[in-house]
């Protein structure tokens, strides 16, 4: 029930905000997000951490049962962690906007709450259509936030964001629907009694999808990645992100970096990995390669940016590359690291966006040519900036390190020669993948220190119109003091505390994630590498809809029996992916 409340409470408060006068919007937003956070804490308490891999706090109602939909929610530890991140960032986004947003407050806070509800819904849903509904619905609030409250080029950015991600996810939907169809009718063809009834239940579809032949899984992988890769964003479909980040208001960037990008990675974890084990095993090197290109390419582009926000935005491309590399490692260390990365990136990059927003509020510029040496004017800000930069760089002791290290180690372990060593897990990645991705660590240090060196350290540079005597120079900061005010510190502190806590005491989190991750890894190893694929053979010749199988639509029984005599051909893909 908590989960439903977590979705409904922000929605209810959004409606309340819409109905009440604008002056009250802030207040309701604070109450709404805090209430949601409170419910979230309660949910954390009610969650049985002894069995973190099972779906808990579940609830389900019929929803257009004719179509097989259910309003079904439930969380395992992975979902719950990400929900917790969402709920944490909720109040922070509200608090950080008090002075930045001066007009259309109702629109702003209302949509912010709707966004939170939608994001929570993504992580909580146990029904693919519910997932997709929330996944897509996040676009609208974000679109509004960017195009109303962004900076100069906001309309184009918002439109690009919407259209780009929408386009990709429609294809994802097609893939998911294909699985649902397979589950509903095609299981017969591989010797499993199919229910004949359509369902979009994730657990049911997971089992069905795993039973698909490898080449079908390959197509589905492509379809699903269309949506998820854009959302993540994976090179080369990342270009909406820098634009959207640069134009979005601070809270928008925080949510975008903190949670929205994680919808893609979460989708990969929840759908791609366990649903399509054979394809994942086969294509993991390609995904990993793309992620590594993203790491290096994104990082190098960061290095020549002059807009601080754009730099951090591109850094997300690089960082999420690590995250995907961890997922593509397909072993416990890598995937656990990847999930930790989702959380950690949300904290540290979210905080960086907050910090950039705070400077922007004061000086109305984000150009490194116009800002420099702020440490002497804003020491508290500078301290936080350096701190979160270091968290982002992956400094050990802070949160970023654990996840980055584990992602890289996961990739390293997955070397094809190392399956038999005690610490190796086998796979198609390995030394070179880890080495080249590891160059990203160096590049990350290069661009982030370049940014800190320009903005925080060095001689003081302020944009024209700001003398360096602080806020007495004509009140150009509005209501804000030269350095951070208590509210801003209050916004940053929880993130800083969590960065340290997750950096020094990650074990409880790791242990909570571990069973869920192990389930996925075991699924991949058990079903993706399954050599006894005779059961999948018939399906190969009997799958309508595949471009190659248009002519086998009227396959007769004779055809099936011929095909089943040569099982290895069909499972060649799976074998080559898994038998290294």
């Amino acid at each position: 029930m908590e989960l439903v409340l977590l979705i409904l409470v922000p929605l209810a408060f959004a409606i309340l905000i819409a109905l009440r006068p604008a002056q009250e919007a802030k207040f309701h937003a604070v109450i709404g997000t805090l209430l949601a956070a409170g419910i979230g804490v309660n949910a954390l308490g009610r969650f049985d951490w002894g069995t973190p891999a099972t779906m808990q706090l579940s609830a389900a109602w019929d929803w257009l049962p004719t179509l097989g939909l259910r309003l079904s929610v439930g969380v395992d530890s992975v979902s719950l962690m990400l929900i917790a991140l969402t709920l944490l960032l909720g109040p922070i986004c509200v608090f950080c906007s008090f002075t930045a947003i001066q007009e259309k407050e109702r629109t702003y806070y209302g949509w912010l709450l709707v966004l939170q509800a939608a994001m929570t819904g993504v992580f909580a849903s146990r029904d693919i259509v519910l997932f997709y509904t929330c996944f897509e619905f996040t676009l609208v609030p974000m679109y509004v936030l960017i195009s109303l409250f962004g900076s100069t080029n906001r309309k184009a950015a918002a439109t690009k964001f919407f259209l780009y991600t929408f386009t990709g996810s429609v294809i994802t939907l097609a893939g998911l629907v294909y699985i649902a169809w397979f589950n509903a009718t095609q299981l017969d063809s591989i010797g499993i009694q199919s229910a004949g009834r359509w369902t979009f239940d994730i657990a049911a579809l997971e089992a069905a999808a795993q039973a698909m032949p490898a080449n079908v899984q390959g197509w589905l992988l492509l379809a699903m990645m269309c949506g998820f890769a854009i959302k993540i964003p994976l090179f080369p479909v990342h270009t909406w992100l820098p634009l959207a980040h640069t134009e979005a208001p601070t809270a928008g960037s925080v949510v975008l970096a903190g949670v929205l990008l994680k919808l893609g990675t979460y989708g990969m974890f929840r759908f791609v990995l366990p649903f399509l084990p054979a394809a994942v095993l086969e294509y993991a090197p390609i995904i990993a390669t793309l992620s590594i290109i993203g790491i290096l390419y994104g990082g190098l582009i960061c290095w020549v940016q002059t807009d601080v926000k754009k730099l951090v935005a591109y850094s997300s491309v690089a960082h999420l590359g690590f995250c995907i590399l961890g997922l593509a490692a397909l072993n416990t260390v890598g995937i656990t690291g990847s999930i930790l990365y989702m959380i950690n990136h949300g904290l540290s990059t979210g905080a960086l966006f907050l910090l950039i927003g705070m400077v922007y509020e004061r000086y109305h510029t984000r150009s490194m040519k116009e800002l420099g040496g702020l440490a002497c004017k804003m020491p508290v800000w500078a301290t936080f900036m350096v701190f979160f930069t270091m968290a982002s760089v992956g400094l050990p002791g802070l949160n970023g390190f654990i996840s980055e290290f584990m992602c890289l180690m996961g990739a390293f372990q997955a070397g094809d020669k190392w399956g038999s060593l005690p610490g190796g897990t086998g796979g198609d990645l390995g030394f070179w993948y880890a080495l080249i991705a590891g160059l990203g660590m160096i590049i990350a240090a290069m661009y982030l220190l370049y940014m800190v060196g320009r903005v925080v350290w060095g001689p003081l540079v302020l944009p024209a119109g700001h003398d360096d005597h602080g806020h007495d120079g004509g009140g150009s900061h509005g209501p804000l003091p030269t350095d951070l005010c208590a509210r801003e510190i209050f916004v940053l502190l929880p993130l800083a505390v969590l960065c340290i806590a997750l950096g020094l005491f990650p074990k409880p989190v790791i242990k909570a994630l571990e069973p869920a991750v192990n389930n996925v890894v075991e699924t991949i190893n058990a079903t993706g590498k399954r050599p006894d694929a005779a059961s999948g053979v018939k399906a190969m010749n009997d799958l309508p809809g595949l471009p190659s199988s248009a002519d086998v639509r009227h396959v007769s029984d004779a055809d099936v029996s011929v095909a089943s005599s040569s099982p290895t051909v069909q499972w060649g893909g799976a074998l080559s992916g898994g038998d290294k």
Partner: protein
Amino acid sequence: MSEKLALLVPEIIVFLTTCIVMVVGLSPNLAVRRSCGLLSASGLFIAAILAINGPAGDGLLPGLTPYIKAVIALIGVLLVMLVAGTVDREEDARVSRGGVFNALRTNRAEFYSFILFSLTGAMLCASASDLIWLFLALELTSLPTYVLVTMSTRGTRSQEAGVKYFFLGALGAAVFLYGFALIYGGTGSTKFVDIASIIAQQGINQITLAGMILAIIGVSFKIAAVPMHFYTADVYQGAASPVTAFLAFVPKTAGFVSLILLLALVGWDHGTDKVSVGHTLPSQLRLLLWVMAALTMTIGNVLAVVQSSPKRVLAYSSIAHSGYMLVGLIAGPGDYGAGFAHNGIAAVLFYLAAYGLMNVGAFAALAGLERRGRDGRPVEIDSFDDLRGLCAGRPLLGWTLVVCSLSLLGLPPLLGFFSKLPLFTSGIASGEIVLVIVMGINSAIAAFYYLRFAAVAMLEDPSDGPKPLAAPFPARAMSGLVALVLVISLSFFGDALMKASRNAAVVEGSGVRAVPASPSPGHKAGDRHDAASPAAAPAQRVGA
């Protein structure tokens, strides 16, 4: 005979209403004249209720009849609300200023009765069990609309729209009439049941095939499918917004019902069950529909992207929606007794209802606003500038526009998504993956312009200069409100509608179709049968 009449009770009610309205509309008393709308709506409402509780039809899709009638009548109610005030505004004003009432100068009676006639025609399409009937019903649907378009505004644009619509419509009618003639020639019967059984027994001959092709092409004029779509934008733009809403729904529904009935004559070739009959959909027809579907959605969308008039955008988008629905038509009803998700016909029927609602909502926002023209007369708005900041200024109209356009875009969790989803599922279930992908990409292209509606209304500040006024007809806003509420609520509580559409999409045979003309034994024979139990389907097949 009396059974047939019982089937026609809703149409008869609407017809009677038409008669009453024709008389009442000529009353010298303004209040009485004004009751035309209310009367029409009431008549339609009663018809809808009777249709819901009425008997199933006697054609190939018995369930289709009550469902479509009810949908047409109910959305007809909304359309009637929407058209309130379209005609006779100046005449009424003149009379209320003390002028003498002149029955010859009032158009209300004709206007409402034409609307009701057209609706009757569309309802009759659903009852059709015969080519002649279908032809007459289609003509009854179309002919009044030509007049409606022409008389909907006093400007030359309406007349231009009327002339284009009429002439091209006549051309289309000639084409499908010729098609009907060939179908008759190829089979020797005009009765659907007989035609279907002949085709099932003897296969389809060339004349029948040619007839089917011509009929499909001709009817596709009604649904504005490529290449019969050229008139759409001009006609929709020229007609008054409420009439445009009418055009986008009623002829299209009639067209799709006709297409379903026509295709049911040959059956669909790919139920998911490999041994079922109905494999008689010739590859030519299938390819024809496939190309039409792909082109229709693509061309509709890309043309909509480059438009600057909201009405033209909606017109082209209505072309695109026809393309989407054609996917369901290609997918067909799936196995006998297949679930909703497999049933492309059910998806189309559900989509029609949903599209009707969203369409009413979108046009309600346009119809709810007007400007003073140069001569002081109210003119319709037709620019995006007039929609700017609508949510702030006129929240009801604004949010109706936003929600309905997002729903038309197919954004979950709005009705548009849940009507597109069955098209996806049935498309995939019938193996049309490529078409489904094309459809998905088209949905994304559609986002270009639907997003513009939402953004203009929701996000932009009102433009400087004179703001559009609210049209003085609360019924228009009311229809928008109803559409708004339904578009949101049906996505959560629309199961009954889905169920109904699914029951409506069961293709029944005449009882003589179980002829194993091919290795696949037929299964569509036999009594109607509880379609909800899929397990019963194989048993049925064996029995057949």
